[in-house]
Structures are given as structure tokens and as C-alpha cells.
């Protein structure tokens, strides 16, 4: 949807963001225990209580939890009493935020709580993610997520779009950050090949974490936040599932989503990209037409912390928080789902003029 389309609709903003530390293992914590401090933090920033929230939407994945209906336990933690107007998506929380945004547009609610979480530590994430591939022709071969990302990286190198030193540079920049919540920061060795051409440094850390955001519409947003991050446009698009019919060096779905979100109408100063593998940042920068004037992933992005189902929502939250703090005026936030950037969401956030 273009920003012109949105102009007749309600203005909706991100007014608060919170996240947990992302840790390699959280054996001593349930998902609910991991999530609760994040919910308290994000509600505390606005002074709202659960019962004040008009709509609640979350994102999580049963395959990470290893049990059906895992999100019901998190809802117990939210404190859904009296009963809530509530929904859940089985994917990254960025799509929960999208659902909440549409709910606020209808006028049925003025505020929304969006949260997501994922614990990758109980299983072997590379193996678990093979279960999201075509169940008849691809999943039985168990091609793991790093191997698929390596195909994409090799396609980029073969096309002359990048090389291994450039990818190493992306890895280093992503970890030279001051984000205290990140799992990897500082000088991180680029390491050995995991699957050629990807080295350990080209891959995201595997970690557990949670994120939460509060949305508010119109004047309610101004009451809750001194500088709301207005959602000027948000759109998401999916591509074919079979890798064989896609050009892995490009992301037409990300480009179309950005166009529909109005990203190309005016210059951006910041972009938070959900690119778990270094080579995917190359793909996204091209598709989203991000030149060197745009600061990429000041948070470190998914290469510094990649809690499954929360890393995309955290990109929107990180971009919004920079606007809240006055460090950005117009930022792009991106989330992805599926193998090799199959599905992409783009949000354009703006602060009021200073």
C-alpha cells in the first residue's frame, strides 16, 4: 500500500519498544519467563496496563517450542483477564505488528501490544528449519538453513555482486556496535567455513530472545510518546517457495513491499534489515536501493542477535527507538521469513519534524 493510499487513513505509530538479551541458551527459563520482563518493560514505558490495551497480537512458532499451541502459555503470562481482543500469527512478530496495524486502522482499537519470542536452544535449529520446506520434494532431503543461505551467497559471488572479503566486512561492521542486548558484539573471529562460501562469521548467532512493541493511533500516540515513530507505510510480499524458480541474487518481494510502503518517495537516514546471513544484506541493499548515505543496522541486525520469530519485530522496534531518541527522522525497517528471504516485510517510520 502506498503512502498516498494511507493518507486518508488513521496515523499509527510505534510508541514503545523493549527486548530481552539474546542468549545462546536459556535453559533455566520457560518462554513465558523470558517474555515477562519484556512485557513489563514495554508497558512500563507507556504507563499502560494489559487491560488498557485495545488489541494484542503475538508471533511465535510451535516448531521451536516443540509443542502444539505453545503461544497459549505466553498469553497466560500476559494476563488475559478480563478477556482480551487478541490474535496470533505463526511467524515473526513483524507480521503480528502488521495485523495489529490493520486493526488500529479500522478504528476498533486505539492501542495495540505486539510481542514475539523464540527459543532456538532446545533443538538443532538448522535441522528444525528444514521442516518449513516443501514437505514432498525438498524437506525429505533435509537441506539445512546454512546450506541454503550458502547457495544464495555463492550465486551472488558468481554474479560478481560481492566477494568473501566484502561479506567479512559486513560481518565485522554488524558486530562493532554498542547494543547491550546483542548476543555477538566487538571483535568476533570470522572463523572457518560452515558451508562454503559462508564462514561462522557470515552466519547469525543462534539464540533465544523476545521483543515487544506498543502501537497507538493519532493523539493517543502523542500522549504516550514524546516523539512517536509514525508508520508511513507497511507492506509485505511473498515469493515462490521453490529456490529453483527464484533469482537468489535479487529480492523482488522486498522491492515491491518497499515501493508499496513508500520507501522510495523520500530519502531515508536509517535502515534496520533482517538479514541473518551477510550475503542477504547485499541482496537487500540492492533491492531496497540503499546507498552509503543510509546507516545500515546500527543495532547490529540479525548478525548480532537473531532470536527466531522476534528478530524481525526487533528491527521495527530498533528503528522506532532511534526515532524516539531523535537519532533518526525517517527509517526503513525490514523483516523476513522463509528460506533465502522468501517473504519480506517493509515498514517506513518517520518522526515529527524537529
Amino acid at each position, binding site marked *: 500500500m502506498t503512502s498516498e493510499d494511507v493518507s486518508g*487513513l488513521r496515523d499509527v505509530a510505534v510508541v514503545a519498544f523493549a527486548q530481552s538479551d539474546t542468549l545462546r541458551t536459556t535453559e533455566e527459563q520457560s518462554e513465558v519467563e523470558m517474555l515477562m520482563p519484556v512485557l513489563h518493560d514495554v508497558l512500563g514505558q507507556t504507563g499502560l496496563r494489559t487491560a488498557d490495551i485495545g488489541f494484542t497480537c503475538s508471533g511465535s512458532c510451535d516448531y521451536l517450542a516443540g509443542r*502444539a499451541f505453545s503461544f*497459549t502459555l505466553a498469553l497466560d503470562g500476559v494476563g488475559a*483477564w*478480563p478477556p482480551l481482543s487478541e490474535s496470533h500469527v505463526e511467524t515473526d512478530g513483524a507480521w503480528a505488528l502488521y495485523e495489529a496495524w490493520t486493526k488500529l486502522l479500522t478504528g476498533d482499537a486505539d492501542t495495540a501490544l505486539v510481542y514475539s519470542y523464540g527459543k532456538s536452544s532446545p533443538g538443532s535449529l538448522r535441522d528444525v528449519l528444514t521442516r518449513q520446506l516443501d514437505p514432498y520434494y525438498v524437506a525429505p532431503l533435509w537441506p539445512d538453513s546454512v546450506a541454503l543461505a550458502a547457495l544464495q551467497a555463492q550465486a551472488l559471488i558468481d554474479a560478481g555482486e560481492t566477494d568473501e572479503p566484502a561479506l567479512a566486512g559486513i560481518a565485522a561492521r554488524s558486530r562493532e556496535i554498542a547494543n547491550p542486548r546483542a548476543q555477538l558484539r566487538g571483535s568476533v573471529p570470522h572463523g572457518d567455513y560452515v558451508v562454503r562460501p559462508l564462514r561462522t562469521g557470515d552466519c547469525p548467532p543462534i539464540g533465544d530472545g523476545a521483543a515487544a512493541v506498543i502501537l497507538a493511533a493519532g493523539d493517543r500516540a502523542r500522549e504516550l510518546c514524546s516523539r512517536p515513530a509514525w508508520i508511513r507505510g507497511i507492506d*509485505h510480499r*511473498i515469493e515462490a517457495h521453490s529456490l529453483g524458480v527464484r533469482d537468489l541474487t535479487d529480492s523482488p518481494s522486498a522491492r515491491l513491499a518497499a515501493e508499496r510502503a513508500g520507501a522510495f518517495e523520500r530519502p531515508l537516514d536509517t535502515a534496520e534489515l533482517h538479514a541473518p546471513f551477510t550475503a542477504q544484506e547485499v541482496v537487500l541493499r540492492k533491492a531496497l536501493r540503499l546507498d552509503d548515505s543510509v546507516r545500515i543496522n546500527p543495532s547490529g541486525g540479525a548478525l548480532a542477535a537473531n532470536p527466531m520469530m522476534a528478530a524481525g519485530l526487533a528491527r521495527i522496534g530498533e528503528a522506532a527507538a532511534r526515532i524516539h531518541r531523535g537519532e533518526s527522522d525517517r527509517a526503513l525497517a525490514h523483516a523476513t521469513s522463509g528460506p533465502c528471504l522468501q517473504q519480506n516485510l517493509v515498514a517506513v517510520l518517520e518522526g515529527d519534524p524537529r
Partner: protein
Amino acid sequence: MSKEPVAVVGIGQTKHVAARRDVSIAGLVREAAQRALDDAELTWADIDAVVIGKAPDFFEGVMMPELYLADALGAVGKPMLRVHTAGSVGGSTALVAANLVAARVHGTVLTLAFEKQSESNAMWGLSLPIPFQQPLLAGAGGFFAPHVRAYMRRSGAPDTVGSLVAYKDRRNALKNAYAHLHEHDLTLAKVQASPMLWDPIRYSETCPSSDGACAMVLTDRAGAARAPRPPAWMLGGAMRSEPTLFAGKDFVSPRAGKDCAADVYRQAGIADPRRDIDAVEMYVPFSWYEPMWLENLGFADEGEGWKLTESGVTELDGDLPVNMSGGVLSTNPIGASGMIRFAEAALQVRGQAGDHQVDGARRVLGHAYGGGSQFFSMWLVGSEPPAS
């Protein structure tokens, strides 16, 4: 700015059966989607976005299957959103899709829900042992039977009411070509003599495991004006959720269900549901949930719901027909079951329900629930557009 009115202009479902071994998951969902498009006389190119729902991914053993289904549902290059809210998901999915139209984000949206239960075993998929968490016992029946018993004790309903519901719904299913169970030789005596599974729930009072999909095309006012057949108009829709377990929870008549219905009635201007609503398609996976939900939804006073069932009010030719399609008791592709309820409500007000049509149905409620009687989604559809 007021919401855009939402109309249902296309409905499609598969013939629900125990096992669709002739099609893949993609083939199953595409069949329902194509039928919904055919009903609306639209093509894949007319669809702006796809909203898909299903119950837990363990039921097929495919993680986030919407990624793999993007091609089969014509979603490539479009937005595709996956909803998962337990057993209510089919209803919730339709409501999320409706919001895209109501918010004027999209003009025409395809929404679809499915389950291909033959790929796995739902009862044990629900019963994975997790340390330090209350087990669901042997599937959903083990969880719900005590709450049925509580209702019987609280209301003083005769033991036979459940069997009446089951016998009615299975007979209604005989009029619905898409229903899974077509038990032509079923008698009330056979229902009452069927094996006890989870006391007081007998075998013939439980839902089957089905493979099936249901799809709807939702559109705005302009889309409805172009529709070849009468649209169903959404007059109200809501979701409510409450915790699974807590001190003081009323499992017999959960507050989330009452609140959800009240919200829908408020939106639709329904003062007295018993008088103002012509028929109800509700989520009854175990027979006794018919009288329980009649009370929870405000069609009967507390403790009185079973009297409507016993006196024949909920029969297809009764004053308030319930589960005209044969209901969940006759067809249960879990993730799709909520949407089938919503779709049946829409079929009724469109006058397209064939042999199970309720004459003159103008306002019909579709209802779904899930989890531990904690997730509710409902919509009220009408033959006329909303007043405002």
C-alpha cells in the same frame, strides 16, 4: 472515518473425508480456493492478498506451511499472512482477512483454512509431554469431558440431551454434500448405545478427524456490486481470549465467549439474539457443547440451553436452527472447522445452502472456539449491508 463494509462473494470447500490420499496439501487448499474464486466469478489475478489459517503445524508435520503453499494459492508477489489461534483459527483467519478490507488496505482478499489430519495424528499431536506443564491428557476429549459433566450437574439436564444433538447434526450432514460423515442408517438408539469414550461423551457424540479446506473471497462495497450472486454482509465480528487455567475460570460458560458475543451483537445492533438472529452455526466438537454455547451466546438463560435442544428448537426446521451443515460433529478438519462455520453462516444468508438452507435466513451467527475454551471468534452476517 467509518470502516469499509465487508462482503463475502465467494465460498468454496472440499468434500471433507478422513483421508485425501489423492492430493497433496497444496492440491487440497487449491481445490477449495479455486471453488471460492469460481463462486465469485473471479480469477487469481483479482485477489490482492491471501490470509491463511490452520491449527498446530504438528498436525501435518510441516513448519509454517504457508511458505510452501504460496505458489498453490497464487500468492507469489502478494501479501500472505498466516494466522494461528488454536481451534478458533478458521474464524480468526476470516476476521483478520475482513480487517484488511474494512481498513481499506486491500479491496479483495482470499482467505482460506485447512487441515490434512491424515498426514499425522491430531490426538497425540496435542498430547506431547512437556516437563512441568499440565498435560492435555488423551487429546481434546479428555480435556473437555469434565466440563461437560460440570454443565450436566449445574443445569440438571437429562443424560440424553447430548445424543439428541449428535443425532440432529449427523442427520443435517446428510443434506450437505461436503460433510465428512454421511451415516444414512444412524438412529438415536445407535448414538445412545455407542461406546463411552470419555464419560459422559460417547463415540457418536464426538467429531471425526477430517482432511479438508474452506475458502472465502471477501471484498469491499465496489466488489460486492460486481458479484454475480448475492453477497453476505459482515454485520459484526470479534475475537476474545482468556487464560487457559486460573482460579475462578468458568469452563462451562467462559467469560471470553460472552464478551465476544456481546461485542458482535453491539456492532450489529442485536438487542435480543434469540429474536433477532435466524440461525447459528457454532463450534460443537462434542455434542453437549450445543446447549452450553446456546447459553454462553445469550440464546438461552443459564441452565436453560438444553431445553431448546430437547424441544426441537435447534432442528433444521426449528425456530432457531443450529449447525445446519452438520457441524463439527460431522466434519472436522480442525484448522478449517472455524472457517466452515463462518462460511455456512454466509451461505445461509446468501440463500446458497442447498438442501440445508433455512428459509428466510437473514441474519446468521458463525462461531468458533479453541484452546481450553479460551479463544473465541465470531461473526454475524446478513443478507443486507450494514446500516451505517
